[in-house]
């Protein structure tokens, strides 16, 4: 497998050095692996810290900046960061107004953020946590580690970030983040496995004529394998899976997210099918985002996330944001 890297051991550090060079508006601590908006801590503002394994770019480092995250901690590829990184990030963004940890529901992320929260509180930093678990593919969550956090992470980070930017107190930012998570559901499909630098070959074997339905974002296989379907069929299946769990009476935000190796040509085509099925089901779309936002290295495939919004959430979603990965209104 050919990859544009030096050696697997330095992939994350090399990427951070390149990111620092491309984004002088961010403070990138390559050695300690923390990305912080340059003006942090912003006086009187709640700090927002997220993080997770690398390999999901632009998530999370690409979402650091005014109107979204205050800091991000990238771990090794597909491995959650360590508590030291989160503690450092929390200290860097804490202005005294407290810090919200945005955590995707994967065992490693949860355990490390829990440990970091304890350490931060020992240092007198007020911490609140929100767990993102929007993935409807994990059905019998009583017998698993629970629903995974995937595409809704972008909505939580953007909307909570807008509220923090406006000066909302920690309790309010946390409540909004929870509301966004509870209002969001995702479903993903993989057309190919991805290749981690450490392993150098695909993480699972997916024959050319088949696809995985219900994948997460770590290259783990999905819950079901089927013969390859058309874009139309995949849109029907994905939206159906989401609407079985979410009954939107309000307009929704739509994220049609590429896993890393699917071209925009295909993603836009897929979005057309997603919009069609939503219209057929009477769901009103308030805003649509199409692109690679929560990726899985070089995996081909896509996920759909719907987030039901009221006027307040929609206003915060539309508020200005200025990050490497998401930017409007500025």
């Amino acid at each position, binding site marked *: 497998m050919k990859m544009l890297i030096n050696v*697997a051991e330095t992939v994350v550090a090399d990427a951070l050095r390149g990111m620092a060079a491309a984004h002088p508006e961010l403070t990138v601590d390559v050695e300690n692996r923390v990305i912080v908006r340059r003006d942090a801590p912003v006086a009187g503002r709640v700090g927002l810290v997220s993080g997770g*394994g690398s390999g999901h770019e632009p998530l999370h480092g690409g979402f650091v900046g005014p109107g979204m995250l205050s800091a991000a901690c990238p*771990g*090794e*590829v*597909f*491995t*959650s*960061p*360590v*508590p*030291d990184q989160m503690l450092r990030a929390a200290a860097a963004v804490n202005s005294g107004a407290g810090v919200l940890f945005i955590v995707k529901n*994967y*065992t*490693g992320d949860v*355990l*490390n953020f*829990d*440990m970091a929260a304890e350490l931060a509180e020992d240092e007198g930093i007020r911490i609140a946590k929100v767990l993102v678990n929007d993935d409807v*593919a*994990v059905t*019998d969550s009583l*017998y*698993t*580690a629970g629903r*995974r956090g995937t595409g809704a992470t972008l909505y939580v980070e953007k909307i909570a970030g807008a509220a923090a930017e406006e000066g909302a107190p920690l309790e309010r930012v946390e409540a909004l983040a929870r509301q966004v998570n509870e209002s969001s559901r995702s479903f993903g499909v993989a057309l190919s496995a991805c290749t*981690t630098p*450490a*392993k150098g070959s695909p*993480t*699972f074997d997916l024959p050319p004529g088949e696809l995985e339905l219900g994948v*997460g974002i*770590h*290259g*783990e*296989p999905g*819950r079901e394998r089927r013969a390859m379907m058309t874009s139309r069929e995949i849109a029907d299946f994905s939206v159906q899976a989401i609407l079985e769990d979410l009954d939107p009476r309000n307009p929704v935000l739509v994220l049609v997210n590429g896993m890393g190796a699917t071209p925009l040509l295909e993603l836009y085509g897929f979005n057309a099918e997603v919009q069609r099925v939503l219209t057929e089901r009477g769901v009103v779309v308030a805003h649509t985002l199409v692109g690679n936002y929560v990726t899985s290295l070089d995996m081909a495939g896509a996920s759909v996330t719907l987030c039901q919004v009221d006027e307040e959430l929609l206003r915060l979603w539309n508020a200005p944001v200025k990050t490497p990965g998401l930017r409007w209104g500025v």
Partner: protein
Amino acid sequence: MLDADFFRRWMTVTAASVDREAERLTDLDSPIGDADHGSNLKRGFTAVVATLEKEAPDTPGAVLMLAGRQLISTVGGASGPLYGTLLRRTGKALGDAAEVTEEQFADALRAGVDAVMALGGAAPGDKTMIDALVPAVDALSGSFAAARAAAEEGAAATIPLQARKGRASYLGERSIGHQDPGATSSALLIAALEEAAGE
């Protein structure tokens, strides 16, 4: 009696064994996890050995607490907090004695394993590291060799199980038929006791 040198050797032997088996651990992790268990643990135990050389803690408890803290700071994922907690809590239970008996170590390791179960919420049969550690602790008062055999048996016994914790749990029934990578690395950790003791 077991002294600080013994526990240092335990960590060194574990690091060598994880280094040797890293590729196998990663291969076990790729069908049901995310193909990084070997490389993550290797990074962690390499750091543990380096730190123990530099800081030279002089009691069994201090060796294990330092090793555990180092794993938490370098491994990431679920393995970092879980293995880190295992060693830290075992070390804490040993207190500050300069030497401990094998019985005291067995009791301390049991406390460590209990802490891992509390942190991760896993019970025996969930297809996790617990499936190797619990039988190992039960056998430890016999001998290190017995603990090794019990851990290896426990790891192999995860093959027919359906995962209920960690990333493998998302596969549901498709996790059946694969040996759990965490149970496998735990068996390496336990096996290293025998070699460290020169048995």
